[in-house]
């Protein structure tokens, strides 16, 4: 099927396709990161996870709207405020939800699944009622749109580069935070042995609340970047659910390295499948292959040492 194209063209497509795969990997990681923190540290399944991504997206959209109306000259810089804002908003909402709902359910992990599903329905309806049912779009600064074209054929999306950078920063930052800071230490010790940690004077309740809110905040940042590539609407979250859970499971539940590996695996697979097949069919094959792979590696592609 490649006879009709020149070598140059094929090379260009390969490069763009690889970069596309890399962006997809980043999107998977951004989707899975918050989920990983919540599940990895607290063994809680958060079905409303996707809605926190959407909170981030909406923060970004509303911020851009506000900037355009009030101070249009700052349109090129508002991103630097909007992204921390997305973190803060999602963090606060997460904090409140942990306090009201999740904290009562730590001993019943499967019930959390139900309660957070109800929560996600409510959050979706909140978006619909208070922000509007229609799609929204953040007006992006000029420099973020368009592409960088090193040759005639090759186009590298600039927002893809930004997402790549964000993902790396977030992932490395998270590793640093959990391994090198006081709070990280508290989080790890609480997740490993709650009672002992309590005995040693760690306030596990606050630690839990902080962890959950942190995860939500990270999702908020993820969402803020996702809105540059996909749509933002009240039900946008439903499109993330299955994939973000799969990334987590395939990565071995609670291993950050595994999360990245499985994100890469999924991105590679879907880039190849979609190149040779039409969309829906490619998706069916993607899920079937994951199914077979998981049957072989039942603990995920890279299971964490803590669990075994």
């Amino acid at each position, binding site marked *: 099927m490649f006879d009709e194209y020149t070598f140059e063209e094929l090379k260009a497509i390969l490069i763009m396709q690889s970069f596309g*795969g890399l962006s997809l990997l980043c999107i998977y990681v951004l989707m899975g990161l918050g989920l990983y923190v919540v599940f990895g540290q607290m063994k809680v399944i958060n079905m409303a996870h996707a809605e926190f991504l959407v909170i981030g997206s909406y923060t970004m959209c509303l911020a851009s709207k506000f900037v355009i109306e009030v101070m249009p000259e700052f349109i090129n810089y508002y991103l630097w405020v909007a992204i921390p804002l997305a973190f803060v908003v999602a963090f606060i909402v997460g904090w409140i939800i942990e306090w009201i709902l999740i904290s009562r359910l730590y001993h019943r992990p499967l019930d959390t699944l139900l309660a957070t599903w109800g929560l996600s329905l409510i959050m979706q309806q909140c978006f619909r009622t208070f922000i509007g049912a*229609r*799609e929204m779009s953040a007006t992006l600064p000029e420099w973020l749109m*368009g*592409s960088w074209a090193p040759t005639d*054929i090759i186009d590298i999306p600039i927002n893809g580069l930004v997402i790549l950078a964000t993902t790396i920063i977030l992932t490395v930052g998270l590793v640093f935070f959990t391994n090198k800071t006081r709070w990280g230490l508290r989080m790890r010790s609480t997740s490993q042995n709650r009672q002992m940690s309590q005995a040693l004077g760690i306030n596990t309740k606050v630690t839990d609340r902080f962890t959950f809110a942190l995860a939500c905040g990270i999702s908020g940042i993820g969402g803020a970047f996702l809105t540059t590539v996909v749509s933002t609407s009240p039900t946008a979250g439903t499109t993330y659910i299955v994939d973000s859970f799969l990334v987590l499971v395939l990565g071995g539940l609670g291993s950050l390295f595994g999360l990245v590996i499985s994100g890469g695996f999924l991105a590679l697979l879907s880039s190849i499948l979609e190149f040779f097949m039409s969309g829906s069919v490619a*998706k069916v094959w993607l899920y079937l292959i994951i199914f077979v792979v998981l049957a072989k590696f039942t603990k995920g592609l890279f299971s964490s040492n803590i669990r075994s």
Partner: protein
Amino acid sequence: MKLKLHSKMYSLLLMAMAGPTGHVIAEEFPTAKVNTTGLAVTDTTVTVGQLHSITGTMAISETGSVEAERLAIEQINAMGGVLGRQIKIVQEDGASDWPTFAEKSKKLITQDKVACVFGCWTSASRKAVLPIFEKENNMLYYPTFYEGLEDSKNVIYTGQEATQQIIYGLDWAYENLGARTFYLIGSDYIWPRTSMKIARAHIERYLKKKDPKCKVVGEEYYPLGHTNFGTLINKVKLKKPDLMFTAVVGGSNVAWYKQLKAAGVTSKKYDMLTISTTEDEVLGIGGVNCEGFYSSMKYFQSIDTAENKAFVKAFKARWGDDSVIGDVTQAAYLGPWLWKKTVEKAGSFDIDKIAAASGGIEFKDAPEGFVRIHDTNHHLWSKSKIGKFLKNGQFEIISTSSELIEPNPYPKGYQ
């Protein structure tokens, strides 16, 4: 749920009811005569149903239709109603779920005994309710452009069927953009698939006769809600088509345009003609992402006629200044008016009489311009238009078909 009207509308309403016309007309048409099948018609009111998704994924698209239908009904009420009767609305939520649509339509017809229903949006929801409308014998006014291959006695299709939209668009692109190679891209359901089937047939059977270079270089479908088009965009770049002919809908639409822009596929290098993107969608996509591409529709908000300007003004006064009106929204607005005209022609609310009287109903002052219900099928004659996306989310109309295009739901030679 009963319709809550603005206080302003109420005073208008009261004036209309107090005025002589309403009473006189209503007395001329006694209820026993105009309603022989037990519909919810009284001496002063007639109840109609409205069935759209207010919740769920389709709420994004259907909001405009809900608003347009309400506006039309309020305007009709202010003018004295239908046969002297004020229209009352029972609204139900289809919740973007086809079984719910079926359940609610059955409720509207059998429980509320509505005189007709304005509603549905997706093909799937229409297919779900159609057997119920046929079985229970009621009337549906369906606003969306759709795939054709259907002509029910119990449905009036106020949007365009596929051939009206596609053939004009492709011919235009052939003539004016010099398009010879085509890449067909759609969401994965019946409307895009049938549309692309018609498009392919037109390219391979008719355009090819004019220029043998015409061909389809690719055809792709992506599931609804798909948000990652990177690979598809690379495939398009590899094939370098003269024209991307697209029918991507819903949330996918936003992702599609944003990623095109990010990948450097802009109107400077590529041409795209879409049959699915209206002003409504551009609101979510952002005008800057689709600037310079083309859309084939029968209505654009920027149509420069007195009727359209009055409509846009009324719509904005009722639903807010920042609301936009797309093709389907306008088609939804036609529904109540066409129904009113049909009822008045038939002199009755009975479904059978309305179905029989529908053929040939004309609406001269429609925002899109003169429309007429076809004599033998329940579709509209209408003019197709090509619009160019502008940065501000509106369209510049650059071509309008010279004649009204005949609706042809079962196109011969395109199967």
